[in-house]
């Protein structure tokens, strides 16, 4: 098996999900300069709602094709997440739009805690396992394996990102969103209802989050009320990596983060195998002769790689890979 290719495939799968979630962070930031820390919880709610529906359907109608069951889950998750996203903006962030920036930021963190505990109340502490309805389909490419679910995740992500880009760069609403991101006052002078554009931005981000939630849940086979925290943090890092506020940056950052993380997980064991340096001590030689390996860091250190790359990029390019240099903005 080709580890490199395999980890590349795994990384691109996870990365597509990060990219879709990162878009939600970056779009909101681009328009109101708010880091919506509750966005990860919207993803979690999407997964929980979809899994409840999928569980119920798989139990009641075992004959239904798995695609129909999953799509029903998505169809339930999208409107619920959109409602949550809309309410977040309307009730929590809009009243603070002219407050100092720290106030909405702290509110966002608060909302993320509120949503997490709301999910705890509704779905309890127990994780929901994805029912075994999708037959495992494995395809071989160049010595690596790719599953049907992985292909579906990548395809859906690409389609959603292409659709979003077309919306932003080809439609009147998209132009209004870009204009508002640049200068809301002038946009309003053109006839753009700023409140509406901001609400629409949250709705779009939440719809993407819902689908991302279903994808990530299906991929790992589990949904849990805390899953939004890590996922949200990684997607937010991806947005920062690409340059927060920049849509192409969020997509690039997401994919890159996924790939780095997967490659890191694939190679960290071998790279930190002390037996490569067994000449250092006789005890090591003995140990390695017996076990073959003495691995310092296992693949559970994969998160370290993702954040290491983030830190490195930010040291050399503080505004992210595709972000404008800060001086240009001032």
């Amino acid at each position, binding site marked *: 098996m080709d580890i490199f290719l395999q980890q590349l495939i795994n990384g691109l799968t996870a990365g597509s999900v990060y990219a879709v979630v990162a878009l939600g962070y970056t779009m909101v930031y681009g328009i109101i300069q708010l880091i919506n820390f509750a966005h990860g919880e919207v993803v979690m709610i999407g997964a929980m709602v979809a899994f409840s529906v999928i569980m119920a359907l798989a139990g009641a109608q075992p004959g239904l094709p798995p695609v129909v069951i999953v799509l029903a889950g998505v169809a339930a998750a999208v409107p619920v997440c959109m409602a949550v996203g809309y309410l977040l903006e309307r009730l929590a962030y809009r009243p603070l739009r002219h407050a100092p920036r720290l106030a909405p930021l702290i509110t966002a963190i608060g909302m993320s805690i509120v949503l997490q505990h709301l999910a705890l109340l509704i779905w309890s502490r127990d994780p929901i396992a994805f029912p075994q309805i999708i037959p495992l389909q494995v395809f071989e490419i160049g010595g690596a394996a790719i599953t049907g679910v992985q292909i579906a995740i990548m395809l859906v992500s690409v389609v959603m990102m292409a659709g979003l880009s077309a919306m932003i760069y080809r439609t009147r609403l998209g*132009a209004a969103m870009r204009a508002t991101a*640049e*200068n809301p006052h002038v946009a*309003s002078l053109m006839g753009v209802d700023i409140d509406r554009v901001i609400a629409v931005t949250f709705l779009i981000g939440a719809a993407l989050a819902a689908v991302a939630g279903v994808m990530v849940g299906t991929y790992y086979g589990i949904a849990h009320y805390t899953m939004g925290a890590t996922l949200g943090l990684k997607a937010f890092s991806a947005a920062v990596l690409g340059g927060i506020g920049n849509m192409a940056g969020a997509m690039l950052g997401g994919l890159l983060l996924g790939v780095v993380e997967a490659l890191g997980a694939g190679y960290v064991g071998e790279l930190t195998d002390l037996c490569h340096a067994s000449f250092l001590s006789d005890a090591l030689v003995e140990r390695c002769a017996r076990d073959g390996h003495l691995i310092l860091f296992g693949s559970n250190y994969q998160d370290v790689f993702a954040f290491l790359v983030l830190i490195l990029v930010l040291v050399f390019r503080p505004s992210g890979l595709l972000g404008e240099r800060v001086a240009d903005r001032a």
Partner: protein
Amino acid sequence: MNVNLLEAKNLKVSYGGINAVKGIDLEVKEGELVALIGANGAGKTTTLKALCGLLHPSGGQIHYRGESILHTPPHRLVGQGLALVPEGRGIFGRLTVEENLAMGAYSRDDAAAIRTDLERVYHLFPRLAERRRQSGGTLSGGEQQMLAIGRAVMSRPKLLLLDEPSMGLAPLMVQKIFETVLAVAKEGVTLLLVEQNAKLALEISHRGYVMESGLVTLADEAKALLNNPQVRKAYLGE
């Protein structure tokens, strides 16, 4: 010609505790070109922002076409024909020239007429036509001002408020901008023009207002203001 298109009475605007506009009366009749001049910090920009809804007045009345617009948000006023070319132009630097112009027509839905107007703007400013696919941020200051005026024209305004269109431009470009302002006026657009270049502004205007620290100190025919010794001394550099 004698209908008041815009009428502000005892208009007051403050920023927190600072009173920037302290109760001014101002009117613009249909078809007029009115100049509003005054030193830096007199409150001209603040007045225009209040008139188009970007700032909420702390007191007074504003009537546009006979109706109070005190509580009308700016994005609705454009649709009613009241447009502002803001100080510093407010070009969307990341949108193309053509997208900027399209944003000007955002409040309209008559696609065919919008296309005709676009060609008219390009005819008025051939330079913009050459650069239609370029992003707004790459234009020179003068070109950006042309774009800002062209964009406002795209909304088919009845009343256009212009905030220092000649600011920071070379003399030749100032000339060109003033010619454009006159051309727009000739098409039947009523204009309220804020300018540092008091002489040029008064020369093309019917009437003028002079503002000083938040108050209107003089209001008269433009010709009379041009001959007013006080104005000549303070604003025409004599």
